[in-house]
């Protein structure tokens, strides 16, 4: 009896626990932040928040160039990182898609960068990027290339951080795509071989299209995290030098926990949330459109 009822309402029984959990955990914080974003408040216990309506939003949009620059940097960082990570990730997955001695160990080792604690990784790269005594410039020195300033330079800071992000997360994309590659049915490949297609043609016309769904999932997941990248930027440059690596998330954190302008920080977080949501909706639509 119960079994029938469950089966009839499967689509609710299976999903409601998860959805309810999310809503309960998230509703209060989001409503709270939305409310604070309409006020001016330094978290004081003495001075109550002052209701200012949409003034915080107006301030950010109209009178704060730092906000727009942070938005630009967020997109630049995410776009560049995603592009490089996807290309390298797919390439890496294709490379690893075969049996070779020690493959278990090798594949596990590739997992390391994304497994490591971002804060610790930030510290290691911080030392490696140091222009005078760091390892990065030592490598350049060995390759007879001029030493760089890396994260100490206003122009190189953001790309250097992209480098660290690419190093850290390419394996994740590779892992997801590899799992997809391995699950592909062998028929289309056999058919293509019979038709006399060469490896490159097989890659372009058979493999890549078939793994598009998995690549799509990997890209969306990575996009969300890349937009919100915090740990490595925080531990390496804190948004500097001179705001050169300040993304929206870092700026939000600074406004809230460094300047104690909770109203402004909350409004920025709401805008940021809308931006990430928009990007996800767009990517999801693109993914579906591409499949159909």
């Amino acid at each position, binding site marked *: 009896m119960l079994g029938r009822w*469950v089966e009839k309402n*499967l689509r609710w029984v*299976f*999903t409601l*626990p*998860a*959805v309810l959990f*999310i809503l309960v*955990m998230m509703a*209060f*914080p*989001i409503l*709270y932040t939305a409310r604070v974003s309409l006020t001016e408040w330094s978290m004081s216990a003495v001075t109550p928040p002052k209701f200012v309506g949409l003034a915080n939003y107006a301030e950010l949009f109209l009178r704060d160039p730092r906000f727009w620059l942070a938005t630009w940097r967020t997109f630049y960082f995410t776009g560049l990182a995603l592009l490089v990570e996807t290309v390298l990730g797919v390439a*890496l997955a294709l*490379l*690893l898609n075969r049996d*070779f001695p020690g493959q*278990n160990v090798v594949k*596990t080792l*590739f*997992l*390391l*960068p994304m*497994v*490591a*604690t*971002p*804060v*610790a*990784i930030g*510290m*290691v790269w911080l*030392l*490696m990027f140091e222009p*005078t*005594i*760091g*390892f990065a410039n*030592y490598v350049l020195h060995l390759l007879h290339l001029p030493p760089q300033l890396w994260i100490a330079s206003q122009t190189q800071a953001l790309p250097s951080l992209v480098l660290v992000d690419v190093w850290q997360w*390419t394996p994740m994309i590779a892992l997801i795509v590899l*799992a*997809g590659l*391995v*699950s592909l*049915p062998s*028929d289309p490949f056999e058919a293509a071989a019979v038709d006399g297609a060469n490896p490159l043609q097989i890659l372009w016309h058979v493999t890549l299209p078939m793994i598009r*769904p*998995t690549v799509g*999932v990997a890209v*969306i*997941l990575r996009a*969300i995290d890349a937009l919100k990248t*915090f*740990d490595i930027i925080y531990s390496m440059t804190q948004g500097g030098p001179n705001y050169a690596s300040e993304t929206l*998330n870092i700026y939000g*954190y600074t406004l809230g926990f460094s300047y104690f302008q909770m109203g402004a920080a909350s409004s920025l*977080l709401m805008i940021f*949330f809308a931006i990430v*949501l928009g990007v996800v*909706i767009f990517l999801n639509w693109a993914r579906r459109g591409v499949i159909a």
Partner: protein
Amino acid sequence: MTRRQTKLILNVLFYVVLAVSLLIFIFPFLWMILASFKTQAQITAYPPQWVFQPTLRNYVEVFAGQQFVQFIWNSLVIAAGATFFGLVLGLPAAYSIARYKQSGLGMTILVARIVPGITFLIPWFILFTRVGIVDTLPALILTHMLVTMPFVVWVMIAFFEGIPAELVEAARVDGCTEQYAFLRVVLPISGPGIITSSILAFVFSWNNFMFSVILTGARTKTLPVAIFNFLSYSEINWGGLMAAAVIITLPILVIAMVTQKYIIRGLTAGAVKG
């Protein structure tokens, strides 16, 4: 050039590219491990020192000076709990969303991943203090589930979408309910996907810093927060930091090594099936 020669060259090329890629990705860890056995003066030396007198001081400091065993335990319980419950809630949800195209609900779950983490800090602290569960493991498992579950759901939706409906129908024709088919047919063949999403979910929870810093206390401190113990106001203990970083990464590496075998086994079985 004979076919055999081409194949040989391609093989060699493969191994070279593989070796170089591997080196690039694991080099910072090699550096980290080396540094964990060095003194601070050796760590910041230039040109970098490859040959040096190793010291175990940093590791002694980590275990003797801090209660690292406690931190490891905390991180483990929280990550395992968050992953387990993430699966319990997430797998059925992902299946239903994939099968019945409930994109609205799917979006709702994904929204949890979209909200910037900072947004949660103060509201959650207020909430948890009222209920009296700050500095408890269950509270942290709950918050980390917000990290693990959406991830599990989204990765598994893609995998479940790839499972042919005929499989489920065949089971139902045999007389069992859909939920039974889910448990007995769908889940077993989704092994690779489940393991992949579990590993990643576990890792995200293990490395989570922001939530842990605010919501943990002395009893429930986790590893990423503990690593900061080596950053003091007027001193940075690079050696200790590196040793702690190695210790934090090691358990994950071991777990990944062990479960990786299952992934491979599941993957080859799937390939044979065709």
